[in-house]
């Protein structure tokens, strides 16, 4: 497999930012929803899951990128999955050893990171075609974007559903928590709400672009 032209392009800030905003894995690409919704009933859990996913993204992207010229095309998916599963197993042990509480909260969903389409997508579409430093930067960007999305959902759910943020109470004793927010339906509602926000923001951007073009036309 010869090196492709895209490998010669330099790493830009765009490589990183693209994963965070434009191609945000959750809100734009609608990938990785399962583990995302399940553990975002609090901001701490959201960060925990996001951090674990970043670790797996970095590890697997690095290894896939390093081995990209060695893995034959026919077995690449199988290889990627084994590599991803390895890092997921490692992060599972790591979280268990670091914090029993977080491990109890995230539970089986740590291991479900392995079927998070975001990671396989990164390996297949980016890490297998770029050198390691670039792959790492891109993976980190996507991971940050993923964590950001989880945090958006998790914070809102925690604030509304428990009256706290990161465990710190925000409102007084008389606050009646909107309990449904920390239950499954809340996960759907809040994510739907954020999707709405993103769609609206995108539409506004489109409209602005069109207006700008028209203005240019009218002027020139």
């Amino acid at each position, binding site marked *: 497999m010869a090196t492709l032209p895209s490998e010669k392009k330099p790493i830009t800030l765009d490589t990183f930012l693209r994963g965070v905003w434009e191609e945000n894995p959750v809100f734009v690409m609608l990938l990785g929803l399962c583990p995302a919704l399940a553990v975002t009933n609090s901001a701490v859990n959201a960060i925990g899951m996001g951090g674990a996913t970043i670790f797996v993204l970095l590890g697997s992207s690095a290894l896939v990128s390093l081995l990209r010229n*060695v893995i034959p095309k026919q*077995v690449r998916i199988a290889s990627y999955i*084994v590599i991803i599963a390895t890092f997921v197993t490692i992060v599972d042990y790591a979280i268990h050893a670091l914090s029993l509480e977080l491990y109890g909260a995230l539970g089986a969903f740590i291991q479900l990171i392995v079927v998070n389409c975001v990671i396989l997508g990164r390996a297949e579409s980016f890490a297998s075609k770029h050198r390691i430093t670039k792959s790492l930067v891109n993976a980190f960007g996507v991971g940050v974007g993923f964590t950001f999305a989880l945090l958006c959902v998790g914070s809102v759910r925690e604030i509304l559903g428990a009256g706290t943020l990161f465990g710190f109470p925000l409102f007084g004793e008389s606050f009646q*928590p909107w309990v449904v927010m920390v239950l499954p339906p809340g996960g759907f509602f809040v994510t739907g709400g954020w999707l709405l926000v993103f769609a609206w923001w995108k539409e506004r951007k489109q409209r602005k672009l069109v207006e700008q073009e028209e203005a240019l036309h009218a002027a020139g």
Partner: protein
Amino acid sequence: MTTEANPSVATHSEANHSGVGAPISPMPSPLVLIRTLGLIAMIAGLLVVLAYQITDPIIKEKELLALEKAVFEVIPGADEKTATRVSYALSSHGLKRLDDDSAADANLFAVYDSSGELVGLAMQGAAQGYSDVVRTLFAYNPECQCIDGLTVLKSTDTPGFGDKKTVEHNAKFMANFKDLSVEVTPDKKAIAHPIETVKHGAKTEPWQVDAMSGATFSSRGIGNGLRAATDELVPLIQQNLSELESVPKTEVSK
């Protein structure tokens, strides 16, 4: 193993299947495939085993500490600084003392004070609550033949109704477990009156648990867990009481 699994790999799968528009590399010999998969398996295995070796002792230690903390918390009169915890596996075959390595198999925990006298016993209970199983750790006092302490280990029931914080803050409900009678029959083979969970406000007997108002299922989960555990273990405890009552002083040095 091919997966046209997600949008970002769609194009490549098409190339795989139709072979149109993409350069097809010749199928490598089986040896190359095996070599690659073998290499990856080796790297993967190495990484996982390494991680396991590093984290396993840490995990075991943390879980043991958490368990010990819960046991000391639930048994009234247990002084963390001077008392010792011993784990046992209790069955119809008898009492077996476990060391820390096999503590995971323990179904009975005993706390002894600095002179080797038994302070209290603790057991786990688990039964279906509202949404899932509720796990508890409770203290049994063989002298009064009653349960005199309870802590919720794990509950996924509705926050504000059956979750750990709400339950443990509910003073009226927790009062159930200060003196819950689990007397055995004279032949020490069974519980005279198994624990019963009754509706809020309907408690008349010392072996009944007065359910939380508005959280009957969670209350039943806790009560039934206690009942199952005591039905099985308390008669055995009473039968093996002399063995449990004290340990040699040398074993309780801290």
